[in-house]
Structures are given as C-alpha cells and as structure tokens.
C-alpha cells in the first residue's frame, strides 16, 4: 500500500487545491471517539514533561478538531503510556520503501504521540513532526503514530505553547485521515502559523467529509445503545411534528363555494 501520510510541518510556498486525504482509500477510524495517548519518558530534548505534552494534546483537541459542528469524530486526551524505546529511536518507515510502516512501531489502537530522535525521520531541524496511520485494516484505521522531533536541534521547543498545540492538532489531522490543504488559513496547511487560533473552513469540510455527523440518529434507523449515539428525543419529537404537519398538508379540504 502506498502511504502518503508522512507529513511535515515546516515553511515554504503555496498552491491551490482543496482539502485532501492521506490515502486514496479514504481510510478512517471506525469509532467516533479516539484517544490520544502520549509515550512516557522520551521527550528529553523538548524541555517539557510528559504531563505538559499531554496538556498540550488536550488543548489541541479541545481548541481545534472537537469544535467542528458537523463532524462526529471526537478526539479525547488520553494518558501517558509506557511503550518500547523503539518509539523514541526507531524510523517511522521501513528503509528503502515508499514509506511502508515500521512494524515495530505499530500502534495497537487510537493515536500515540511519541518524542523521537531518529535522524532518518527528521532530515531537517525544521521538520517538527511526522505522522502515519500505521495500523490499518482495509479502510479502517486502527492505530496512528505521531512522532515529534526530539533531536537536540529541534525547533518544536522554540514555539509558543499555543503554536505547539496547533502543530499537534495538525498532526492529529493526518492521524485520522486528512492530507494537506493548499489554503493558508487552514490548520492542515503544511506550514505552521504563529497565530493559529481555530480550524479553517477547509479543515471543517475535511473532517466532516471523513466523519460526517448523522443526527439525530447515528444510522438509518439504527440506534447503538452500547456507547454509540444516544437516541435524541428532540429528534423524535421533530419527526412526529413533521409527520403531523405533512399529513395535514396533504389532507383534502372541502372546496368552498363562491356565492
């Protein structure tokens, strides 16, 4: 499978196209809530603790992706987890491949963010992070990996906290299936922006395209009572009202005679 998801956040020029996807198969998470976990103990050069990184993740999901009104996907701040040191030192892709995921760094479920110091992942200090959905079944993402540049020369730690949150949010966009946007005011633009405060229009269109919200019910007459969408009684009330109104609309009225 051709992976197009190695995406970098640095600075350069512009082009004009629409929001894009990571992969031509339109791969997505099957569930509506995805946890974002942080690999513990690896951020040696970033100058932040695991808890601080987790806090930045919380800001990233709350200030950006979870605000989309038309998307069903919700990212949740996860936990600090212990993983193998390969996540700190390994390459995200297998060498000499078109970025075939390194099986040693496969993420079992949800999204994992790890600091990483392998120079093969970050050929320049301007590359802040790389991301790949690296555990895929068919068109379903099971797990995605975000690696943050933790080399001594990294530029991530020079950014302000809100910009770091925007960088993480950008990488999370790749992790759940979005590619880059050509539009500069979009979070998914390839370059960082110091005053990134909210999603752009293209971002909302992108996440809504991959994860369209389906209210008041999650599917066509199905209600998942085991943690999925809850039945929405207001929706039922509206449908009841509509049926009555339509019935009345099409009810034949006796024609009044002109005198």
């Amino acid at each position, binding site marked *: 499978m051709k992976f*197009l998801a190695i995406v*970098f*956040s640095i600075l350069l*020029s*512009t*082009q*004009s*196209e*629409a*929001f*894009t*996807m*990571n992969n031509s198969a*339109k791969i997505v998470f099957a569930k509506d809530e995805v946890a974002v976990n942080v690999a513990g103990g690896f951020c040696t050069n970033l100058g932040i603790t695991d808890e601080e990184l987790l806090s930045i993740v919380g800001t990233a999901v*709350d200030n950006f992706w979870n*605000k989309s*009104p*038309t*998307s069903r996907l*919700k990212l949740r701040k996860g936990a600090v987890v212990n993983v193998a040191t390969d996540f700190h030192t390994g390459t995200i892709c297998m060498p000499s491949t078109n970025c075939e995921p390194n099986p040693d760094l496969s993420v079992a479920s949800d999204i994992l963010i790890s600091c990483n110091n392998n120079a093969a992942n970050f*050929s320049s200090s301007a*590359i802040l992070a790389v991301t790949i959905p690296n555990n895929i079944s068919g068109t379903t993402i099971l797990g995605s990996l975000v690696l943050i540049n933790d080399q001594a020369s990294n530029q991530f730690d020079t950014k302000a906290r809100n910009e770091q949150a925007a960088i993480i949010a950008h990488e999370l966009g790749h992790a759940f299936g979005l*590619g880059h*946007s*050509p*539009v500069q*005011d*979009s*979070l998914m633009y*390839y*370059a960082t*922006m110091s*005053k*990134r*405060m*909210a*999603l*752009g*229009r*293209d971002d*909302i*269109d992108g996440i809504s395209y991959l994860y*369209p*919200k*389906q*209210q008041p019910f999650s599917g066509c007459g199905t209600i998942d009572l085991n943690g999925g969408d809850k039945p929405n*009684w*207001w*929706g039922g*009330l*509206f449908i*009841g*009202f*509509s049926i*009555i*109104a339509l*019935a*009345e*609309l099409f*009810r034949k009225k006796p024609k009044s005679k002109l005198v």
Partner: protein
Amino acid sequence: MKKLKYLIFLLLISSSSVFAVTTDLNVSLGNLCEYVGKIQTDEDGGKNFCSFLPSLSGNLDFFITPEFVLSPQLGATLPKSGRDENIKRMTMYALLNSKYKTSYVNLIGGAGLYLTRISGPGGEALLNNGNGTDSFPLPKDAVYTRNFIVNLGLGFDFNKEWSAELYTYVFNALKSEDRAFSLGFSATYHFGEVL
C-alpha cells in the same frame, strides 16, 4: 420515555382538532452566516462573521390561533465552493417552526434537520509536503452531514404581504464543545391561503 409518550399523545390529540385552520404559503429569500466566530479566516487569527451565502426557503403557516402559528419550512442555500473552489458545498434544511404573533413582531422557535453536502472533483493534488511535494487524494463522492438544529428568531410584519426575519440556527445546542451558531436574515413574501 414516559414524557415522550405523553408529548406524542398530546400532539396526536391536537392534530385531530386544531387543524381546521387558515394557512399562509410564504417564500423567503435571505442570507445565512454560517458558524459565526468559529472559523479562522486569516493569518492574524481573525475569525469569520458573515459571508455571502444566499438562502431560499418555502414555509407553510398554519394559524392554530390568530397568535400561534405552526410553520413547517424547507430551504436551501445556494450551492457554493468551499474555502477552495474545488470543494462544492450546499446546505438544505427542514424545520418545524412555531411563531407567536403580536401586532408587528413574531417570536419564532423551532427545530429541524440541517444537511450539508460536501463533494470534490476526485483525482490527486500535488501539494507541498514540507521537504518537497507529494500527491494527496482529493475527495470525490458527495457526503452529507446531518445536524439536528434549534431555530430561534424574530419576525417583523411590514404589511399583509411582506415580512422580515432574523434567526439563529443553533448546532449541537446541548454540547458546549462543538456548539455553533449560524445567523440569518430574510425577506418573506406571503401568498396567503393558496392551497
């Protein structure tokens, strides 16, 4: 559950008796400002307020009493490009509004479904990938998002034929994290009881 059954029972009872009423078919033309204050629009962190998005809707008012009106509404916005011209967006909505009419001002409240259609041209785009360029797939099939929205508004009757409305569509009213507001205004022509 009991509450809901009670409400539906009340609706059924009322539907059989109250609809021997006058009606008013009316058509509204206006503009919808989507997701006010929710979208970044420039590099300086500026956010959106209103952009050109014409909307057209048809309403059928049922005068339950001279003051209280039930008003099913079907409407759509002009199909338009997204932030990028390759993305096509269009919204459609089906609402059931109620209106309380005073001499000039109408209080409007309702709820309904708001559909957003998003589609793209397919193919691939060559985009900057930080350290070079890469091909990224563009969206192809049309996708519909479906939101249950609450509508709150005010109407002003100028005369028997013309009125104007200001309204707010509230998305995800019960969830603060992705709650959003779209503001709209419209001018309405009333055809009266033509059905």
